[in-house]
């Protein structure tokens, strides 16, 4: 079967892409989305790992999946919260371009 390493590499790649997006994008929304990508990399890692080290762990082989579910939930919450704040920003300043969001510096 496919060695765990491959999955981990996939996860790493996804993580990297997400990170790149987070750095490269200028729209707050897109940055958040890239970060979601990173979180998905985490999930891949977790689930793959869970299925490979079955038997180990308190909750049979399910630790990984459980964690993944938590992660997804948290991620959803994060996005909601982030968008709320971004929206507020848009209302006040009419932009969500992080280039223009720099009153606070130094």
């Amino acid at each position, binding site marked *: 079967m496919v060695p765990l390493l491959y999955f*981990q590499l996939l996860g790493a790649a996804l993580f990297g892409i997400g990170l790149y997006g987070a750095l490269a994008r200028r729209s707050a929304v897109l940055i958040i989305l890239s970060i979601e990508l990173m979180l998905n990399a985490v999930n891949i890692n977790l689930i793959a*790992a869970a299925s490979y080290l079955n038997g180990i762990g*308190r909750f049979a082989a399910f630790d990984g999946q459980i964690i993944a579910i938590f992660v997804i939930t948290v991620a959803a919450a994060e996005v909601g919260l982030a968008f709320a*704040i971004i929206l507020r920003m848009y209302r*006040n300043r009419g932009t969500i371009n992080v280039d223009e969001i720099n009153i606070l510096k130094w």
Partner: protein
Amino acid sequence: METGLTTNLHLLTPEFALTALAFLVFTVDLFLPERSKEWLAGLAAASLLAVIAVALLMRPDQSAELYGGLMVVDGFGLFFKIFFCAIGLGIIALSVEYGRDRLQHRGEFYGLLLFSILGMNLLAMSRELLTAYISLELLSFSLYVLVAYGLREARSNEAGIKYIIIGVLSSAIMLYGLSNIYAALGTTYFTEIAADLAAPGDASPVLWVGIALLVVGLGFKLSAVPFHMWAPDAYEGAPLPVTAYLAIGSKAAAFALTLRLFAEAIVPAAARWDEWQLVIAVLAAITMLAGNLVALAQRNLKRLMAYSSIGHVGYALAGIAVLGSDFALAAKGVIFYLVVYAVTNLVVFAGITAYYNREGKDNIADLAGMADRQPFVAAAIAIGLFSLAGLPIFAGFTAKFYLFAAVADGGMLWLAGVAIFTSLVSLYYYLQVMRQMYIERPAHAEHNVAAHQEHAEHDNIHQHAAHDEPDPPIPPLQRPSILLTATMGIGLLVVVWLGIYPAPLLTLIETASAAILPLG
């Protein structure tokens, strides 16, 4: 094991109570008219007091696991629980007047405060990475909202956005680390991680990457350099009480987690410890340096406090770095330092808030002549700053001495040296604030603001000798609110008391640190 899920849940009474009370605050908020929202503050405060009371009833000397070891109720947890609730009380005291004049939706404000405190409490008790993570997020979410609470203020929004983006990013990184650890060890329990770490044979890179990323995540919460950059903006943008809360509460919580994590997961793995010691030491060193140096160049008081708090994180981290050698001493040093730092900062922020409530200004230059306008507040801030700078009869001195002694004893005299040097630097900018409050006069301050900030303090060219006529007296400001005065008063008493006779507190800390004393 399964039984662990159901038994002794009563030990979690404080947390359950806190949750319920938080919701209660939210609900009551719906029915209260706008003018009488102050009651919510009272309610929140009362609930915190209740929680403290309950926590005090528990036995600090024994530890009981919950949910099969996801959490533990022990002296360490209890200590921090009480500590956090006390901080919460302080923050509420800071918020009342400020909230009345400057914030909408105060109901949610206090509710969120309670939730964040709940998060911190859980953090102090969690013994497993996921649990820790979830509690951390609970804390963070509340903070994201609180930071962005100044709805109409661009600064507040911006702070919120930056905070949440970086926060989410680093939580993603932390999770990735978590996933790697899980992938490598198949567990996320601190103790088991320790066991596997200690196991002979070299571990897979995956594991190390995992731990490294975990540290990064913590670094973000601690705002350790180079993961600190959100802090100044968040501090400056956030409403003052929230700034105080960021500076005191979230840092304390993060350190609580760090202490337990290192104590239970990494210190026992002494075999592989030493190199990590160095990593943390370097982090600590650059954190102190960067924080204190950049603080020199600040004009905004909140921002200054942000950088100074970064510097202080550096000191505490230095304590973490030597956990390996003499754990008891180092842990006590760190906790003692945290407590002192919290109390002192509370005093300073109370002072700043008191001034801000009247003047609505938070630039350093705006403090000019404060000593004549709000003598007590000025004195409070001055003492607080002296304490932060580590000058005696104030707690800061004792705490620093204790902590640095621990660091030196841990074989890192050089790190102690850096710490001492940077606290000299910190004195430089604390004195600049002091100077505005006590020496400058507003009249001058106005047209000299530029001069003050661009040039060294000795370049400014106006003389007032002691003998020539003192400038026309500045109208004193309206007295600060009772709550703030009380906060400052009590805070000052504690600061001086801890500076002169810290022994009692140290015994408490003794029990707290004993609870997480690694067996290995």
